[in-house]
C-alpha cells in the first residue's frame, strides 16, 4: 500500500543512509517543501548529484535522478539541460563535491549561465571519508589529516560566484527550514545559474560547527540590502564576523546559455535522423 504523503516522498521503508540528527534531513525537508510549493511536475524534474553524503539526497526524492561521479554533477546537469530544455534541473552536492573535486566545473557553469539550481550542503567537513578537512573547513580545526589544525583559509563560494557574476547567489542554514525552503524556492524559479550554499551541521565529524555554532554565527540579511548590487553582495560575502543568511544577489539581465547557443526548444530525444536531402546536401561540399 502506498502511504506517501506527497509526490516527492519515496515509498515508506526506504533506507536512508544519513546519521541520526544530520542536517541533511532538514535540508531534504526544505527541498521537498520548495518543490511542492512550486508545483513542479516530478516527471519533468531531474535531480543531479555527485558523490558524498549530500549527493545521496536525490535518492530520497521520488524524481528523475542522475547520481554520477564525485565532483561531476555540473557537467552532467549541463548535458541534460542542453538536451532537453523542458526539464527542471537541480543539483545537490556537498562542499567537497562542489568546491573541491568539482571546482573547475563550478567556475565554468557560472560562466555559461545555463538554467540550473545548485544546492550545496555545506557542512565544512568531509563526512563520507570520515572527517578530513573540506575546502570550507574553518581554520585551526584538527582532523585526522590536518593534525595540527587546518592552516588554510576556507574557500568562499559566494565570493567566487559573485566574482563571476553568478546571477543568483544565496546562503541558507538548514536549521532554519522555513528560510531554506523559501530561498531554494526562489532559486529554482530563477531562470539561470543559481547557487544556494546551505550551512548544515555534521553531527559526527564536525564538533566545531554545531547547531549551536551556526545559530550563533549566522545573522539575518542586513535590512535594506540591495540584491541587485553585486559589490554590496560581495562586501557582505567577504565581511568578517557573522554569516548573513538569505539572497545576496539577483541579476535578471544575464542571458541564458541555452539562448545564446540557440539550443532548440525541442528535446533531442524527439529529434529525427537527418533526412536524405539534408544528408546529400552535406555531401555536395566534397565533390
Amino acid at each position: 500500500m502506498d502511504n506517501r504523503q506527497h509526490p516527492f516522498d519515496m515509498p515508506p521503508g526506504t533506507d536512508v543512509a544519513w546519521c541520526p540528527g544530520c542536517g541533511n534531513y532538514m535540508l531534504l525537508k526544505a527541498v521537498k517543501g520548495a518543490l511542492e510549493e512550486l508545483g513542479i511536475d516530478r516527471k519533468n524534474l531531474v535531480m543531479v548529484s555527485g558523490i558524498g553524503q549530500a549527493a545521496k539526497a536525490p535518492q530520497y526524492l521520488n524524481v528523475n535522478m542522475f547520481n554520477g561521479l564525485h565532483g561531476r554533477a555540473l557537467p552532467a546537469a549541463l548535458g541534460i539541460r542542453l538536451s532537453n530544455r523542458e526539464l527542471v534541473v537541480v543539483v545537490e552536492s556537498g562542499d567537497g563535491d562542489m568546491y573541491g573535486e568539482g571546482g573547475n566545473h563550478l567556475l565554468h557553469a557560472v560562466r555559461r549561465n545555463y538554467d540550473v539550481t545548485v544546492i550545496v550542503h555545506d557542512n565544512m567537513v568531509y563526512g563520507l571519508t570520515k572527517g578530513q578537512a573540506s575546502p570550507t573547513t574553518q581554520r585551526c580545526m584538527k582532523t585526522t589529516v590536518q593534525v595540527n589544525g587546518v592552516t588554510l583559509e576556507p574557500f568562499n563560494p559566494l565570493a567566487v560566484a559573485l566574482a563571476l557574476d553568478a546571477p543568483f547567489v544565496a546562503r541558507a542554514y538548514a536549521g532554519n527550514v522555513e528560510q531554506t525552503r523559501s530561498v531554494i524556492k526562489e532559486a529554482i524559479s530563477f531562470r539561470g545559474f543559481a547557487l544556494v550554499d546551505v550551512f548544515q551541521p555534521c553531527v559526527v565529524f564536525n564538533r566545531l560547527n554545531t547547531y549551536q555554532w551556526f545559530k550563533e554565527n549566522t545573522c539575518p540579511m542586513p535590512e535594506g540590502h540591495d540584491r541587485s548590487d553585486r559589490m554590496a553582495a560581495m562586501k557582505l560575502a567577504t565581511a568578517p564576523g557573522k554569516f548573513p543568511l538569505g539572497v545576496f544577489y539577483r541579476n535578471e539581465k544575464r542571458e541564458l546559455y541555452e539562448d545564446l547557443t540557440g539550443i532548440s526548444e525541442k528535446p533531442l530525444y524527439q529529434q529525427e535522423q537527418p533526412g536524405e536531402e539534408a544528408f546529400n546536401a552535406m555531401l555536395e561540399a566534397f565533390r
Partner: protein
Amino acid sequence: MVFEGAAGQGVQTITAALLPILKNSGYQVFSCTEYMSRIRGGSNTTEIRITEKKRRAYVRHIDLLFALSPHAFEHLKERIDDNTLIFVEKERFGDHWDDRCIDTPLTTFAVEAGGQVYSNTVAAGVVLGILGVTLDRFDDYLRGQFAGKGAEVVENNIKAATLGYDFGRRLPAARSLTIPAPAFEDGTGRLLMDGTSALGIGAIAAGCNFISSYPMSPGTGLLTFLAERANAFGIVVDQAEDEIAAVNAGLGASYAGARAVVTTSGGGFDLMQEGISLAGMIETPIVVHIGQRPGPATGLPTRMEQGDLNLALYAGHGEFARAIFAPGTLEETIETMQRAFVLAQRFQIPVIVLTDQYLIDAVSTIGEEDVKRLPVVPSIVRTDENYRRYAFTDEGLSPRGVPGYGDGTVRVDSDEHDESGLITESFEMRRKMVEKRFKRLKPLGDAALPPSVIGRHDVAEILVICWGSTRGVLEEALDIIDDNRFAGIHFSQLFPLNPATGAMLENMRLIVIENNAQGQFADLLARETGLSISRRILKATGEPFSVEEVVEYLKEEIHG
C-alpha cells in the same frame, strides 16, 4: 609529389586547391600530411599521389618536390634521390643547388601577377602545367575562392596561375615524368575528403546530435566538423572546460536522450576514464573518438601512432562491457562511426573509435554509392508509472527511458543499484547486477565485425594482420609483392573480436604490423585466440609506415 613549406607558408592552401581539381579531372588521388607542432616556421609537408589504381598509403620516395622553405633538404633528405625533381627558387636555395633542381621563379611570377602573396597560386599552376590539366577548373576555383576579395584579387590569382602553368608546360620533356593517366573521364561524381570528414559524416548519418569536447590534436577535427554543421542538423555543441566535463556532459546528454559523442586524443581520454567507467555502470550509451598521437604524456602532438589500444581496452576502473572500432578507409570510417552509435545504443555501453593523425588528415576519394547509411533502430521507450531503469530481462538489457518522456521516473546511479536505480549494498543485488551487465557480452561479440581479407585467404600461408590506418599501406605492399603466399587481414573492430576470428587465423604464419612499440594488438589477438604471433612489425617513430618499408619487411619473409 610533395609540397614542403614552413607553417604559415600556405602548403595546405596549394594542396587544398589542387586535390579537388585533380580529382574532378579524373585522377586517382591520395594525400597525406605531416606537420610540426608549431604555428609558424619549421618544415611541413603534404604528399599528393596520382596513381593508376586507387591507393591510400604513404610512400617515402618523392618524385616531384616543391620546396618553399630552406629546411626542405634537411627534413626530406631520406626521401629524395637522384630521380627526384626539385622545384625551388634558385636565389633562395643556392646552397643546395644541384642538377636535380629546377629553378622555379615562384616569387618572380607572383610579384609579376601582383605580389608575393600569389606564390602559392603560381606553384599550383606549375603542377597543373606539368600534368597538362587544363586551367579552367583552377580558374573557376580561384573565382569562387576569392570572389569576396574583389575582381582585382581574382584577376591577379588567375594571372599567377597562368604564369605558373605556362612554366610547367614548357619544362623540357627529358625532365618530366611519366604520370598515370586519369582513371576516370570525369571525377566529379566522386567525393574527396579526409578522415575527419568521414568521421563527421558517419556521426551525422547516425543521428548524432550532441558533442561536448575539449580541443586536442588530432581529435579536434570532429568537433569543428560537427560545429560547422550544428545549425543544419540541430547538433548541440559544447566546448567543455576539460575532458572530464566533456565526457560527463556527454553522459548527461545521453541520459536525457541525446545521441552523444565526445572526441579527444589519448591524453584527454586519460582524463575521461572515470566517465567511461560511469557509462558502464549506468548503462548509458556514449561514443568516444580517440585520435591517437604518440605518447606518453604530450609526446609528439602532431604525429601518428597506434599506441592507445591498451588504453581504450582497459580504460576505467571496474569491469564492464565495451566495444572498440578502428577503421582503415573512408568507407570504413563512415560505417564504423555509425556502428559505434548503433552498438552504444543497442547494448547501452561506451563505444570507442580509434583513429590516428595519419588517418584523420589523409585525403582520399570515395564513390557516393559507398557512403553507406545504416538503418537506425529506435532505442528509447516511453516510460510507464512503474518504470524501472534497470529491470532484469533475459538478455540483461533494460528498456531505456529518458526523463520527461512518459509517466515514470528514470534513475541512474554510479553506486551499485537495484532495478529502480537506487543505491544498494545487497550482495545478492550486486551479484545480479554484475551478471546483468555482462549478459550482453555474448550478443555484443556475435555482432562484432569480422576482419576483412586483403588478397586470397584460401591459398595464403602467411597472414599479415593490421588494424586501423595501416590498411592502405599493407594493401599496396601486398600488391607490389604479388605473391599468393601472402594475404592481409584487417581489423576495423578490435574488441570484442568476432567469434570466427580464431578459425580464420589458424594454421598460418601470423605477422602483425602496427604503429606502436610493443605490438598491443598482437598481444590482444594472441590472448583472445590462443594463437601465437610469429612476427611483429612495429614502428613508433611518429611516422606512418611507408609502402617501401612494408615491402622490404615482406621481402624478408620470402628471402629470409
